[in-house]
């Protein structure tokens, strides 16, 4: 049986083309990140509860307050500031280390070439959106990540980096006051830190919808690494 990646002799019977899509390391980084980020977000909400000042609105008019009482009650967030801080400042290390390991691996292995968008990505990403909305009928090109994925996944990595930086800025605003000042001061850094978290919720929603739409073959590749590109289990893009 030939190894994956080896040259393959021509075959006469019905064939199956299998792609090795996600390296083992990246699959681990991805799935380890999930509970770590969840812990950071959950403990972050325990902290935010103690001073929940952010809202969407103009002047005295509030369209949406983060968060309404029922959210706090359902998630059992109130009166847990000390607990939230303890979890947040313990798990920040693991979240940061996993993220740094991922970025380091992606750069060194060359995997970044599939991920980082190029000059033409915005134009192509628009086509992807039109396709996903059912407006554009032509199929998308077969690639590991299309332009919309490249932009979204790169953005989420940058957001992670910004969460670490804005987090540091509000964690050590005196010893690292240069960083806090760079981010616009303490309240601005806290504001950014909060909205990045809301961004993760938006990403999660979009990501889950797209993963469900892409189907089993695609999902399995994030666990098993392999994806069938031509054959009985092929994904129809």
């Amino acid at each position: 049986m030939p190894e994956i990646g080896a040259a393959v002799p021509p075959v006469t019977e019905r064939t199956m083309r299998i792609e090795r899509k996600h390296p083992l390391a990246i699959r681990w980084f991805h799935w380890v990140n999930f509970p770590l980020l969840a812990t950071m977000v959950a403990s972050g909400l325990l902290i935010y509860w103690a001073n929940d000042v952010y809202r969407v609105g103009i002047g005295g008019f509030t369209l949406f307050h983060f968060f309404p009482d029922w959210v706090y009650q359902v998630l059992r967030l109130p009166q847990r500031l000390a607990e939230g801080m303890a979890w947040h400042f313990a798990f920040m290390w693991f979240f940061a280390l996993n993220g740094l390991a991922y970025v380091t691996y992606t750069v060194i292995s060359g995997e970044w070439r599939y991920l980082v968008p190029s000059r033409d990505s915005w134009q192509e990403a628009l086509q992807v959106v039109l396709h996903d909305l059912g407006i554009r009928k032509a199929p998308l090109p077969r690639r590991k990540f299309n332009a919309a994925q490249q932009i979204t996944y790169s953005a989420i990595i940058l957001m992670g980096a910004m969460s670490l930086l804005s987090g540091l800025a509000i964690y050590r605003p005196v010893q690292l006051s240069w960083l806090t000042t760079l981010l616009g001061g303490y309240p601005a850094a806290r504001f950014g830190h909060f909205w990045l978290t809301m961004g993760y919720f938006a990403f999660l929603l979009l990501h889950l919808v797209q993963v469900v739409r892409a189907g089993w073959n695609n999902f399995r590749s994030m666990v098993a690494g392999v994806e069938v590109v031509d054959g009985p289990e092929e994904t129809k893009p």
Partner: protein
Amino acid sequence: MSSSSRKVPPLPEVVLTEAEGRARVAKATRRSFLAAAAAAGGLAMGWRWLTASPMEDGIRAPLRSMLRFNERIARASFSRKRLTPTFPRESALTPRANGKAGLEDEEFNPATWRLVVEGLSGGRQSLGIAELQSLPKTEMVAEFKCIEGWSTVVQWGGVRFADFATRFPPTTPSGKPFDLADRPDDVPPHVSIETPGGGYYVGLDSDSALHPQTLLAWEMNGEPLSEEHGAPLRLVIPVKYGIKSIKRIGRIAWQDQRPRDYWAERGYDWYAGL
């Protein structure tokens, strides 16, 4: 719609007969999902271990250990030279008067108030507000940061804790005279500060207490301190969360052992540094 100017290599792939291919994919799937299940099991065990660990001062012991780990890093990298940013006088506002602990005594009389200082080379001292106000006065407009998350720019007037310590020097570990200029680290490691009845109390590392922006303040926004903000004398320590800026100080003690701390006993970080 072909895009990038960058050369992106194709993903490694293999072409197999259908039977071989199915077997290959099934094997990879089986192995990886078993690994995932094992990882999820490990995660569940880790979660149960952590959430069932004994409590240590209000939080799980492993989390307390992590706070101490963070503290070691913070203290090793701490510098008295790094300052909190200061602001123009006109940006000062009145902070929320959070925290009534230690201020409950309705009989308290600021006029007869005395500050007790212990651990001094000259023995125990009892000081009145006039003696403190005769020390060199420092004014500072800085952001007061509550552990809850809010922050307010406030103007403070008082004496730098370092100047206070120079005037009323503590005994030093070496036995030599206290001298911040020549021997900045030859100081007792901790400072304990309490309200008159001991209803509220904070513990500080001396490095933070002797930071040049740490004040014993009697003035806020140009006015004498109000009772709810800690009259007649409070601590203002911008290198810490506001929980350490204790109001209505009754006793200051230099000491070797780590002092008890009101909020650290209730689940918060003892160090609470910024």
